């Protein structure tokens, strides 16, 4: 029983970690180029969840179509935010805090816009996957969890390929090293930033829809992204593999703390880990060295 309980907890941690990962990658991607924490990301995830919900219920779309629409919709929203909010700030060379505050303004706006127009009611996706989980002995893994792990894996691998192997990716990597220098080298920085927001937004849309299917849809979904933000810092802000590893580790740590220490202190420990990591190694597990970021 002890061993099974432990294995079950590891499964729980992995599935929780993959939810965080889908969200954290968006944070990290934007951070790697823009050097600020995009707190509007939670709002984009929430809108994504609603797009998917209405596509499947009001427009009766099949799952896959709704899923794609979600990605496109959330991607466009992220780009729209970039163009209307961040570009003017960028043109003015505003300090990073202005970006953070604007992002928080945007997330207050999105959240309450949805409450005012759609309403605060919890909504539930129509059933796509059977509720009956896969079982092995006393262990269980629900179908939606498997789906999330798969989407997280495929999405993130695709992203890594784009960034590592394509010319566009080279632009992103160059810009994340130094925007000024890469511009001198002929990288179209505006396009690169546009692309980063689009990619981050698409992943946020997927994350929103899967989150909505696994749990439920409501206007304050964005609050959960504080955790994925912690995960991104944990792994090293601005590093994609770091965000993924950080998320999975945070998922497992949370599960182990609530499983073996005390569920009351789960979040406290998560935040203490955050602070200790910042003190010991501010750049996180896989972050760029602080010299780069100075």
């Amino acid at each position, binding site marked *: 029983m002890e061993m099974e309980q432990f294995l079950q907890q590891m499964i729980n941690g992995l599935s929780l970690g993959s939810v965080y990962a889908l969200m954290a990658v968006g944070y990290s991607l934007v951070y790697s180029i823009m050097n*600020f924490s995009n707190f509007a990301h939670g709002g984009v995830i929430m809108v994504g969840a609603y797009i998917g919900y209405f596509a499947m219920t009001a427009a009766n779309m099949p799952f896959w179509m709704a899923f794609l629409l979600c990605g496109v919709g959330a991607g466009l929203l992220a780009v729209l935010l970039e163009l209307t909010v961040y570009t003017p700030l960028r043109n003015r*060379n505003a300090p990073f805090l202005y970006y953070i505050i604007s992002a928080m303004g945007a997330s207050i706006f999105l959240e309450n816009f949805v409450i005012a127009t759609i309403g605060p009611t919890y909504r539930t996706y129509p059933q796509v996957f059977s509720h009956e989980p896969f079982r092995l002995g006393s262990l269980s893994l629900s179908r939606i969890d498997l789906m999330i792990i798969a989407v997280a894996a495929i999405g993130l691998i695709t992203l890594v390929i784009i960034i590592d192997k394509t010319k566009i990716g080279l632009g992103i990597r160059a810009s994340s090293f130094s925007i000024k220098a890469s511009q001198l080298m002929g990288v179209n920085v505006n396009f690169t930033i546009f692309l980063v927001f689009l990619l981050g937004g698409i992943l946020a849309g997927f994350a929103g829809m899967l989150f909505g299917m696994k749990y439920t849809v409501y206007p304050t979904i964005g609050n959960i992204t504080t955790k994925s933000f912690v995960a991104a810092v944990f792994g090293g802000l601005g590093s994609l593999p770091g965000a993924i590893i950080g998320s999975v580790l945070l998922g497992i740590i949370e599960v182990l703390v609530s499983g073996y220490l005390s569920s009351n202190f789960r979040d406290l420990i998560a935040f203490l880990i955050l602070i200790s990591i*910042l003190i010991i190694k501010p750049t996180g597990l896989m972050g760029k060295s602080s010299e780069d970021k100075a």
Partner: protein
Amino acid sequence: MSWYYIEGILIQCGYVLMVVLGLSLLTGFAGLFSFGHAGFMAIGAYVSAICTTKFGLSFLPALLLGGVVAGVVGAGLGKLTLNLKGDYFCIATLGFGEAVRLILENWEYVGGARGISGIPWETNLKSVIIACAIGTLALMALVRSRHGRSIIAIREDELAAEMSGINTFRYKMIALIISAVYAGIGGGLLAHYMTYIQPKMFQMVKSTEYTIIVIFGGLGSVTGSIIGTFILTFLPEMLRSLDNWRLVIYGLAVIVIMVIRPRGLMGGVELGDIFRLPARRRAAKLAEERIKNMNGESAGEEAQR
């Protein structure tokens, strides 16, 4: 408008102003950003409320004790995190604020999630006016003193300040401790106005709200912070009849201000300067420079032009 209603909002302005003044020193003058000041408020509120409800201490010493404890905790936090670079310090304070709230939620002695009730109603218009007057004068005196100029020098250019013999860590620490004391006293005032506190009241959103006020009022301006507090506390009350569209407009307003007038209402300028026009122009120019400089420090790579 009835006076009774306005009085309530003014009292709210009062304790918000205490926190904002402290934050103004930290953010506007020392250039450090905190998302954890709700944590200091919580400490001040809980310490003073425990003193008055459980130990029968009177209001004033309880309030001061709350401020002192917040300051001591601030010193501890500063010792650990002040060496971190800009945005990482900001993240550390976020973690700190949440950690304080989580500890309070799990601590049965202070009622856990159910909080402390039956706190005597001591905060009135008179007490907040006195607190704010003392707070404002003390802050004004500090930023105009030699120490104040050292703090500003750190914001302008930390390296240069260090070179010219300023102990940057020490001055950052002073700014953080003073701002924590202000936040603690603000929290104590809040507790004795609400007569009830629970951990839920000190969420991260609160810290963000106060930082928004400082930026709205203008970095590096004490009078700007005061004006900002009044406008941003009254604004949501003015919009009250809009029900749930209220926060939509608030969110939009925050974005518009950031995009259109990034140096805030009074960036780098004090109210008195407005009457001395040439000085004002000079100060405004300085403010623009400062914002560029800050940018150079924290996110220099973004410079595109």
